[in-house]
């Protein structure tokens, strides 16, 4: 996860990328289920450093969707 949490800009980037795929994308944190294509949902995740998130992809292009999102996270949201 981005070191300082998911603020507005990275949140909108994540939503934009996830929305390119047909597959459902859910993020789980502390028992919450957040739709990864929802900006208001992802904004609530502005998490402290080191937060653990679980990502779940489900659909026809789940592998590609997962790769794209993980790539964005690994790139540090292009910060």
């Amino acid at each position, binding site marked *: 996860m*981005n*070191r*300082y*949490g998911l*603020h*507005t*800009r*990275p949140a*909108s980037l994540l939503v934009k990328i996830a*929305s390119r795929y047909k597959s459902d994308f859910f993020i789980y944190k502390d028992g*919450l289920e957040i*739709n990864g*294509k*929802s*900006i*208001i*949902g992802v*904004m*609530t995740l*502005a998490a*402290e*450093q080191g937060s653990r998130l679980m990502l779940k992809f489900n659909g026809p292009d789940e592998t590609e969707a997962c790769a794209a999102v993980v790539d964005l996270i690994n790139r540090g949201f292009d*910060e």
Partner: protein
Amino acid sequence: MTSPETPYRELILKGIPASPGIAIGGAYLFTKEIPRAEERSLRPDEISVEIARLTKAMEKSTRELNKILTFAQQKVGDAKAKIFEAQIMVLEDPILLDAIHKRIGKEQKNAEFIVSDEIGKYAHIMMAAHSEYMHERAHDMEDLRNRIIRNLQEEKLISRLEGTVIVVAHSLTPADTMILSRNQILGYATDLGGITSHAALFSRSLKIPAVVGLGDVSRAAETGDQMIIDGYSGTIILHPTAEHIREYEEKREHLLEFEAQLAHLKDLPATTPDGHSIELSANIELAEGLDYVVVQGSQGVGLFRTESLLIDYDDFPTEEQQYVEYKKIADRIYPNRVIMRSFDIGGDKIAPSMAEEENPFLGWRGVRVCLDRPDIFMNQLRAILRASSRKNLALMFPMITTLDEVRRAKEYVLKAKGELSARHQRFDDNLPIGVMIEVPAAALSAEQIAGEVNFLSIGSNDLTQYILAVDRGNNLVSPLYHEFEPSVLSTIKHIIDAGHKRNIWVGICGEMAGNPLATPILVGMGMDELSVIPSILPEIKKIIRSLTYAQMQEIARTVLVYTSRREVDAYLSEVFKREFPDIPVEGF
């Protein structure tokens, strides 16, 4: 004395000064009732009408917010206007919209109720986070929810006001502050809010006096009530007596006159009649303050609080973003100097959701954070170095406690220089490096530290509170906080002497530097630089230009002999009454 036609009693309320200025006028009670989202069941045949009603309200909300965004961009700049973009993005969130539509159909409930419940859910999660940033976002979401519900109920928010008024409200959202400022607003007074809140930031940008944190001004005041707002001291007077009105009219006139009188000092140096020159510079937070600094006749910026960038960015800005900001400041002030203070976060200052501490003032703050987070620190050092290419920047580190920290921080600077050289980027290889002396340990080892740096700058607020072991924010002990305690004064003298022994200059950038009463003491002790808030700068210059260095040395010698702050106070007020009957010195 109350005039016979008003049956009201005068009421004085104290709050937090959020934006300076004095205004006298009629109150306008801005009651934005939180629209009620009562639960109502729908018949199946009403669902489609309800969805259409919702769509219309959402569209109207988007139009309103776009208007506010454009207005904010013009008035306060793109960076600060960004917070409205987040609200617009949420209005267009397809998942949220879909969830609301589905629930209206499935639960057969009215749109107000479902919108309120659905957005409220997210606001609630944001509110539960341990971060000021997330709390602000939660308020944004609540504001958005209220906007949609208001539009569903087709209620008009009255934002066009008649005449010039002082707006009184329970709280003001950034959107409220923006939209209301299209009217002739004399001032803002609110029950809630701290000085860092966006609404306060906006009123400062708009140059409208504001007092926040007044408790219950919105219950005490009614539209049309006569009131006085003093944004310098954070005072509100409702139903002021004729006497108070006259007093504040005079105060306002006096300040205006005094400002005009001081205007001619603008281009004159801060030099005593016997030829002793002081470097008089300004403290600034955001780049927007720069024009004002130049107008006030400053010789430069003695403290740029780089952490103020964190208000505009959601996150730590990148090296490139910081470079652009720092360069803008360096160029605007050129050829004068700007002292950039590395991020001073923690304590009572904004810390973006990094740590929760039992005792933040003795915790992870200032240079301690930077040394533990080389990633943050190096980004900033490279940005500052790059902005230093015209050789008018200096760098200083806050919250230095030990000599070892100074050495480690300097190693990072060397490393950053190496990286920039490898990238063939230009910087000032002789960038002066200094430290803030605000921890008693650093004050005690000031001479050793002075041997490692190019200058010392005294942070009098923290130094005073650490020496006296008093938390200024704690009402039980805050009266014990005073810069004129003999222990504080002699520590300051010790620091100045330590710096001079090592042939480096010593400055001060805390509130004490901007306290006119302290000016003769500080200059008389040998302080080389005073960095003050821009609004007070001409006044301090006037004092420096009025008393001789010999007189000020005598004043400093005298106060250093006193054994209580009461003696210091009494002596200084007598000196000021004699020398500067004009200067509006606040009571002790």
